[in-house]
């Protein structure tokens, strides 16, 4: 097979996390009884008119900000006219001419190198109703009709299935972090359509496009693109051509299959929606919204690594939003962030998983956590002992010092106390001391054993060894 250059563009629809629909005040919900979340507006009843949900505009501003887009301050909506049973008014209200965001980018990391995926535009629109095919009938459920969507369109600047996967993962992470969308592909709250074409040389015109729809997961997006590149390559290699077409990814066979050949020029008869006046955004409105954005993943990763946390742990933290938010409360604290991250991702994660709790539901206040870190750092508490007391730490208000005392597992870290014990042991075991000086390694181990025995195992082992070596010499 020859090598071709793929050109890939991605269109992603995400459902916005609002309480109500974009143009009506019925509930935006998932998984409810069919046709139980609608009103006359969602059904496109004669005489109804749209209103515009403020939160949709706010989330649009947030998404545009996160995706590094410019924000349009004066925008209007357009009608996209097409007949389809899932389209209640037989027009969809969208933003064809004045998308809320444009000229943005998302950074992905391809084999250790950063690449910008450019966003052409992102616009607000309404979702269609859900249809299910049953034999000779199609059943319509209007619960989804009018759910707010943002459609994000990249420039055709993606060059592999792997990049598509990285882009979608990044987008999902960003939009979830921004609390813009749940981005659950399996529930349809994030949907991706991918346009794929290939050509021989950079200077050639773009090849014929195939659009892949109905992609059920990010890994399928990658696979679908790779299969499509393969398919197109074979066709061209055999001297064949194909018509612009829509394909869908079939889970069962792990490949794309033809849905339909695209008819030339869908005539959507766009025109400005006369029922919705201009939406005008002021700097103040935009700033007020942007201020409520949480710290984004990349910034978190960077901050964590600056504080000495490993790249691996930084990524793990970011992947766990509640823990990452918890970690963020410690960013300016003088503490050992490395220990903090190890604890959060290790014992604490295990505890939270086991008890199915959110960290906010535990008694681990920031102050208690800082105390815990400091005890571990001074080795007053060993990590082995931590396991014994963790449940109590997470579930009671008793101070951590008291918990340790109660359990009797306090490490002796008092220099003088250990030194006194060691001095006594040295004077009581002259033979072993002699052996040590004669180069017998076993002697020091024996002496250490005596120290631990005398302190009932509470002496900090590292400290004890240091003092013992010092006293012996």
């Amino acid at each position, binding site marked *: 097979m020859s090598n071709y250059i793929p050109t890939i563009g991605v269109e992603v629809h995400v459902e916005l996390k609002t309480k109500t629909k974009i143009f009506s005040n019925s509930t935006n919900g998932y998984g409810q009884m069919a046709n139980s979340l609608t009103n006359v507006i969602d059904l496109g009843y004669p005489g109804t008119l749209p209103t515009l949900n403020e939160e949709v505009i706010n989330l649009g501003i947030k998404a545009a900000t996160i995706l590094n887009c410019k924000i349009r301050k004066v925008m209007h909506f357009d009608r996209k006219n097409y007949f389809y049973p899932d389209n209640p008014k037989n027009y969809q209200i969208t933003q064809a001419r004045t998308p809320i965001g444009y000229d943005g980018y998302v950074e992905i990391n391809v084999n250790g190198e950063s690449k910008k995926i450019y966003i052409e535009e992102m616009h607000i629109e309404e979702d269609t109703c859900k249809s299910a095919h049953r034999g000779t009938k199609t059943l319509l459920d209007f619960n989804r009709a009018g759910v707010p969507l943002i459609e994000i369109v990249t420039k055709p600047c993606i060059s592999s299935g792997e990049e598509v996967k990285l882009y979608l993962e990044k987008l999902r992470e960003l939009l979830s972090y921004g609390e813009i969308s749940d981005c659950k592909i399996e529930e349809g709250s994030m949907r991706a359509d991918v346009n794929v074409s290939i050509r021989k040389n950079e200077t050639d015109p773009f090849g014929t496009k195939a659009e892949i729809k109905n992609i059920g997961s990010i890994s399928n997006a990658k696979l679908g693109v790779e299969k499509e590149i393969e398919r197109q390559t074979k066709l061209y290699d055999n001297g064949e051509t194909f018509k612009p077409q829509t394909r869908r990814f079939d889970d069962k066979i792990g490949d794309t299959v033809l849905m*339909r050949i695209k008819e030339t020029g869908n005539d959507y008869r766009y025109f*400005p929606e006369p029922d919705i006046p201009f939406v*005008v955004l002021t700097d103040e409105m935009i700033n007020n919204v942007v201020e409520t954005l949480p710290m984004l993943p990349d910034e978190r990763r960077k901050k964590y690594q600056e504080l000495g946390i490993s790249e691996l742990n930084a990524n793990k933290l970011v992947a766990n939003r509640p823990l990452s938010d918890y970690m963020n409360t410690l960013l300016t604290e003088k503490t050992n962030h490395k220990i903090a991250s190890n604890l959060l991702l290790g014992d604490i994660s295990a505890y939270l998983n086991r008890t199915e709790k959110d960290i906010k539901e535990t008694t681990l206040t920031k102050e208690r956590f800082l105390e815990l870190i400091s005890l571990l750092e001074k080795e007053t508490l060993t990590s082995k002992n931590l396991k014994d007391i963790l449940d109590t730490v997470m579930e009671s208000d008793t101070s951590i010092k008291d918990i340790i005392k109660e359990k009797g597992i306090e490490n002796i870290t008092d220099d003088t106390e250990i030194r006194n014990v060691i001095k006594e042991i040295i004077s009581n075991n002259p033979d072993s001391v002699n052996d040590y000086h004669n180069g017998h390694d076993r002697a020091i181990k024996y002496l250490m054993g005596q120290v631990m025995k005398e302190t009932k195992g509470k002496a900090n082992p590292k400290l004890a060894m240091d003092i013992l070596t010092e006293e012996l010499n």
Partner: protein
Amino acid sequence: MKDELSREEVLHVAELARISLTEEEIKKYQVELKKLLNEVEKINDVEGYDDEILIANWDSNAELRKDIAGDMLNPKEVLENAPRHAGNYIEVPVVISDGEGA
């Protein structure tokens, strides 16, 4: 210029509007639609337009609605005027291709 639309032109706009036409109607609309189109062509006599979008109303901008849920219909009401329904669903003859839009 012939003062009627071609058969194809009439069928094209009828397709856009999703209206089936009889042969007789096609002939009639070839003439009638042309008359209307000749009339709207007069807009070309007016100068001065820079592709700016204007939405007519007296207040300059849209008032946004707070994101608070209101009353909804129950499924029974949804089906009340629907010619065909099954269970809680509104029914249509099977649709084969995928949606064109969103």
